[in-house]
């Protein structure tokens, strides 16, 4: 009898636990889209982004102030920022929200992966909204940056900030070596000569004490050399790699970059880079590096005296790639008007000046970008803007896979000893197969 009573008690307990779990899990649906019962008049605007320099408390303080001001000016709208941090996690996780039918209202669109969102119809065309809003002027933004998210006469994002890829050099090292700073339009052979002059070797150590250039294997960090060499990795329609990545001019560029490490020893090997464990340029062990505006945050903290130069040319003219962050509205968003107000606010002169004072990137808003002019480094970055092209990822849906295979190609050449021509031919075939895959 005691056992039976005990059993009943446990049964009731388990049933109550199950019921409580069900209520907790189903509560958001029972409470409705507003998130809580009785809050129908409040719009919760979900904004997805990849985080930003969240480790910097002053940057986060500005972010909080900016959001609070938007909510103050738009009573009834609450902004819920959904950060998706983690290397390589932003695009897959964000896409999952679309597949699950629960996308954010506004998303930060990375130019490097914009195509997958645009081509699959996940974003709203903003042109009708722009035409109907006299308070917004698209002409205020750099036209080539705006074009990143343009497809025909449709526009899927308003650019917020961006950076052209450039060569950053340590002026102190140049001064010590009595080398002239790079001139605009410098060539690949001038670059090599400079890198050789800046490399400091020691008879007692196999590795140089200082490298002329900090080469890194990730494709976004070496890809502009290919354009500057007058070739490309994909065909103009973005559907073929064979005949492009393995073309003689491309192979020559890849070989040139590999030889910086293998033959000339003016750049660290991959294991030397890894062994250092830190940014060799930042620690003064490399005189030049290829990077974007985001690095300025750290260089300024370190009080480095730096200069900015264009990517050295070799038959391709003065050209580089730009990486950009735009703001887009999900096609399925029920709050498109509030989302548009939010985007306008974020790209406004007032907010851009506050947020980009950190040095994170260049504002796509021409007025704001020019307000930072006067500083030689900022001026040098701005000089590169007309030569900056949109990245392939804004046009080709699977370009992240191309970048993965490009990195592996460099590993094959630099650590596997595979000749550049063979590695490029193999990688071109692999990319072709990925692009053809249904």
């Amino acid at each position, binding site marked *: 009898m005691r056992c*039976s009573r005990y*059993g009943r008690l446990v*049964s009731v307990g*388990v049933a109550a636990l*199950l019921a409580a779990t069900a209520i907790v899990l189903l509560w958001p649906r029972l409470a409705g889209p507003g998130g809580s019962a009785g809050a129908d008049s409040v719009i919760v605007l979900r904004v997805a982004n990849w985080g930003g320099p969240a480790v910097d408390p002053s940057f986060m303080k500005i972010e909080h102030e900016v959001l609070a001001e938007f909510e103050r000016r738009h009573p009834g709208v609450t902004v819920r920022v959904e950060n998706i941090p983690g290397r*390589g996690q932003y695009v*897959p996780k964000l*896409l*999952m929200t679309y*597949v699950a039918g629960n996308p954010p209202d506004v998303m930060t669109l990375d130019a490097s992966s914009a195509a*997958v969102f645009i081509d*699959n119809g996940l974003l709203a065309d903003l042109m009708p909204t722009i035409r109907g809003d006299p308070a917004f002027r698209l002409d205020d933004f750099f036209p080539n940056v705006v074009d990143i998210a343009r497809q025909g006469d449709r526009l899927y994002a308003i650019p917020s900030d961006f950076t052209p890829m450039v060569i950053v050099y340590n002026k102190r090292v140049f001064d010590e070596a009595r080398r002239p700073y790079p001139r605009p339009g410098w060539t690949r052979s001038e670059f090599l000569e400079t890198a050789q002059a800046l490399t400091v070797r020691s008879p007692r150590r196999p590795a140089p004490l200082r490298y002329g250039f900090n080469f890194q294997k990730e494709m976004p960090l070496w890809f502009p050399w290919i354009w500057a060499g007058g070739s490309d990795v994909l065909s103009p329609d973005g559907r073929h790699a064979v005949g492009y990545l393995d073309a003689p001019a491309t192979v020559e560029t890849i070989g040139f970059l590999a030889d910086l490490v293998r033959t000339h020893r003016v750049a660290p090997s*991959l*294991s030397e880079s*890894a*062994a*250092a*464990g830190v940014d060799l340029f930042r620690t003064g062990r490399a005189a030049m590096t290829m990077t974007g505006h985001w690095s300025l945050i750290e260089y300024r903290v370190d009080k480095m005296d730096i200069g900015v130069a264009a990517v050295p040319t070799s038959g391709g003219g003065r050209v580089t790639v730009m990486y950009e962050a735009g703001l887009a509205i999900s096609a399925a968003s029920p709050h498109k008007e509030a989302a548009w107000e939010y985007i306008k606010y974020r790209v406004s002169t007032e907010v851009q000046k506050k947020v980009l004072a950190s040095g994170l990137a260049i504002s796509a808003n021409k007025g704001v970008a020019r307000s930072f002019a006067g500083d030689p480094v900022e001026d040098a970055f701005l000089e590169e803007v007309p030569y900056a092209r949109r990245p392939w990822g804004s046009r080709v849906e*699977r370009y*992240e*896979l191309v970048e993965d295979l490009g990195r*592996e190609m460099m*590993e*094959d050449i630099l*650590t*596997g000893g595979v000749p550049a021509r063979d590695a490029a031919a193999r990688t071109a075939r692999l990319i072709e197969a990925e692009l053809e*895959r*249904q």
Partner: protein
Amino acid sequence: MSAERSNWRGYFFVAPATAYLLVFSLLPMAVAAWLSLHRWHLLRAEHPFVGLDNYAAALADPFFRTAFWNTLVFAGASVPLGMGFALAVALLVDQRLRGIGVFRTLFYVPAVSSGVAISMVWIWIFMPQDGLINSALRLAGFAGDTDFLGDTRFALAALVLMSMWGGLGPRMVIFLAGLQSVPPSLYEAAEIDGAGPWQRFRHITLPMLVPTTFFVLVTSTIAAFQLFTQVYVMTQGGPRRATDVVVYHIYKEAWHKFYLGSASAQSYLLFAALLVVSLIQFRLMRRQLKEAAEAWQ
């Protein structure tokens, strides 16, 4: 209380576990089987039936075959080494010493730590310049600048070393339980007959541990085939795919390339491989298990 009511209560109690098994194991397995027969890209509207094409494509894919080979090498190295290490530690902590519980707890700590946290710690241990191993090598007079996780020759071995430590806790506890259930009378009898420590270990401990060893072998093999967290956190399959293992490959196929059909087919191929390996282990150990069962009786 009638038998019928008693049955009802029994079903009620097993219902949560059954529901869990149905919803989170059997249903996904059935859906995955169905997906594996379709060309199913997450962002495409069309999902045509392709029969066994996904299986054939996976078997023909050199990268998948590389991942499979890496998994076999990892399992082939980490399982015997990990089991040997765990047995050695279990023998050490199977002593009547003051504070032995502290040692047992310390050795068990990795089992209750997060896989990601452990991986982060090992990244630091393997660091080329200031990592623990390289620092020790420098003290011993070596160059001490090996990029263990970035060098194709060492990357998989580094993961094996880490898994020996990471999987130590549960294996050690199971071996310890096995050791403590061996009747002391057997050791006493052997000692009277003049058997030394090695003979006692070889002819009493090891045979009596056969069922325990078999259990550890099967579970460790399954765990080795499912290696993912360490690869995801520490190497992302590199360098040059030297640590690309099957589960990581499947993850990339499903959540970076969005080919769920193909990823499901690869999952079933992994399942088939594990089944075959387990059956082989059962067959090889059958005689030893039978002898051990007789010895226990």
